[in-house]
Structures are given as structure tokens and as C-alpha cells.
């Protein structure tokens, strides 16, 4: 399964990033092989709509699930529409986060973090 984790560095040992739309890097991880693809998040620099842009990007890149600290309303709705499952971060490194994901220890996100 291909999942994405918001990260502050480009390896499995990097710390996860608690923000979604403006995280520095997306780490796409194949949970079977633990192969990693690190991609800089271009949405981080946009003045508005970063959550939507990042959600579109993660969906386009084929992630079936995304793990981050929180998802705002626009990001949440976009990811939901794209069928990407959202989970809340737990772990000090991306590797730990992925292991927690594989073990079913991460909480599924079912509502945006900041309602209007």
C-alpha cells in the first residue's frame, strides 16, 4: 500500500511534520517494501489554498492514505472526495509512524480539525 506522511526531512528517520498543507516534504512510502519517495511540497509557498493544492498533489501521486498532524476543512473535503484516507500522526520518526500505521495503531481522521 502506498501512503504519504508529512515530514520535515527526506528519509524514514526524519521527524514527521504536524502540518498538512504547508509541510516541507511529503514522504511517499510503500508499506510492503518500505521504499521511499521524497517530494518537496510546493503548496507550502502559496498564499492561499495550500491545503487544497497539497491534497490534489497527494491524490495525484497515488497515495491511498495520508498521515499528518491535522487536516483543515478544505484539505479534509478534498482528500475525502479523492478517496484518500486520513490518519493522525503518532511517532518520533516517519519510520515509527509507518510502523504504527501498519500495526493499525493510528487514529483515522473523520472530521476536519478546524471547523468554521
Amino acid at each position, binding site marked *: 500500500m502506498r501512503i504519504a506522511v508529512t515530514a520535515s526531512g527526506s528519509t524514514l528517520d526524519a521527524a514527521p511534520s504536524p502540518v498538512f498543507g504547508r509541510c516541507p516534504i511529503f514522504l511517499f512510502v510503500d508499506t510492503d517494501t518500505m521504499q521511499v519517495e521524497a517530494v518537496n511540497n510546493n503548496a507550502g509557498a502559496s498564499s492561499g489554498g495550500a491545503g*487544497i493544492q497539497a491534497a*490534489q498533489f497527494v491524490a495525484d501521486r497515488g497515495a491511498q492514505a495520508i498521515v499528518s498532524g491535522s487536516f483543515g476543512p478544505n484539505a479534509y473535503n478534498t482528500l475525502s472526495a*479523492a*478517496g484518500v484516507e486520513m490518519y493522525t500522526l503518532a511517532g518520533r520518526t516517519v519510520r515509527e509512524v509507518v510502523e504504527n500505521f501498519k500495526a493499525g495503531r493510528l487514529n483515522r481522521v473523520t472530521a476536519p480539525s478546524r471547523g468554521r
Partner: protein
Amino acid sequence: MRIVVASGKGGTGKTTVATGLALVMAQAGPPPLFLDCDVEAPNAHFFLKPALSRREDVNLLIPQVDLARCTFCGRCAEVCQYHAIAVLNRNVMVFPELCHGCGSCTLNCPERAITETPHVIGVLEAGQTPAGIDFARGLLNIGEPMASPVIRALKKWRTAAPGQTVIVDAPPGTSCPVVEAMHGADLALLVTEPTPFGLHDLRLAVELARHLSIPAAAIINRDGIGDDGVERFCREAGLPVLMRIPFDRELAAGLARGRPLPEISPAHRAQLGALAGRLLEEARA
């Protein structure tokens, strides 16, 4: 002549100065056109007391996607500078609150699957004040994030008669809505207060005025508090200080009751009158 009253920092007295100027001008000569462009919190009507008799909605044209024609190619999302549209497998999402109504998605859709529908974001209101001032204001609807289109619409809706002076009451800050309010002005009156915060934002406002090639001058409100940083900055930047309004309990109490500055204090009526005369004279020269 078009005068924009701006500040950078909020609560420095933009509306006090703008409404005061408009009233003394209306007393001395032909009444000006007054545009309250602080559309997120317009308050000039408290002082000018217009009878608002005309109204018009402000619309943005928001894309609507015909999913039967859409091939989900993603071109619309690609060209949108504001990320207001997302294309996801067999779904297209539009975020009206992020849309600037620029029309790029519609123009670039290869399938012509996008039409535009009006989305009301605010309202324009206009009327005469007892002093004969042509008054108009914009009001952004609660929950709508974009003030600039309302300001743009207001400036288009009410234009000056030949030779009529326009006074624009700008929003605080130096972001897009302020740029929109300042754009086209012949003079920027920057109202500030002699505090570090006032100075910080005055610097930004001066920079913005220079960027827009609008001559600027300062008015110092709450004169007597704080420090001499603003005075020094004005001297060094070559920014003329056209008026000083003291930090005064009587003025504050009067303004809080909705009384305009020239009505509260004859001394300030005279000062504003002299300022108005000077500005109009310079405009004619």
C-alpha cells in the same frame, strides 16, 4: 482630486480624519464624494449619517463544472492561481471562498465544460448625507474572505462628477484591499500615532504609497503619547506632517458618541478647514 486616507495600523483615526475633511469641504464649497472602502468594518456612516437609498449586490463569477462534459484533464486546477478548484479522479471541487472570479478556468477548459454563476459576496450602499456629501460604502458579507472585489466594485459604482473631490476611507493594513483602495489616488494621507506600533505600520504604508507613486503626507493622531520615533521618521523620510490631533479625553468621548471631529472642536474644524483649503489649492496648482 482623489484623496485616500490610510494608515497601516488600525484604529489610528482614519475615519476621524476622512469624515472631518469631508464635512469641512462640504461646508466651504462643493460637497465631495465619500467612499468608505473599509468594507470589513465600515464606520464612516456613524459620523456622516447618510440616508442610504441605493443598494447593489457585489457578485463574483464562480465556476460551475458540467461533469457530463468534463474529461477530468485537470487543466482548470492547473491554471487556478488560488487553488480554488481541484480535480480528483471523477470529481471536481470548487471552493467559492478562495475563488477570485478571474475566469481562467473557464477560459482554459478544452471541453467548454465550465460556466460561471454569480456568487454574492457583499453589497454596495449609497445616499446623501445631511451636509450634502455623496456617500457610498461597501460591505463584505460575514464569512466572505475577499474584500478587494467589493472595494473595486464600489469605486466603479460611484464615480466623481467633473471637478468633484473624492475622499476614500481605506481599510487598515497594507495588503490587497488597501492597494485597491489607494490605487488611483492623487494623495495619500497617512494617519498614524506616535508609538512604535504606529511607526512600524507607517513605514509600510509609506513604502506602499511610494510603490504606487502616490504622494504621501502624515497626520499624527494621539499626539503627546509615546515617543518621538514617528516625528523623526517623517523628517528623515521627507514626509510632511500636515496636522496633529492631541490625545484628548473630550475628543475621544465625542467620537465615541458618533460626533465628527469638526463638530466636537472648533479648533480642529479650523485646522481641518485650513488643511482642506491647502490640499484643494495644491490640486489646482
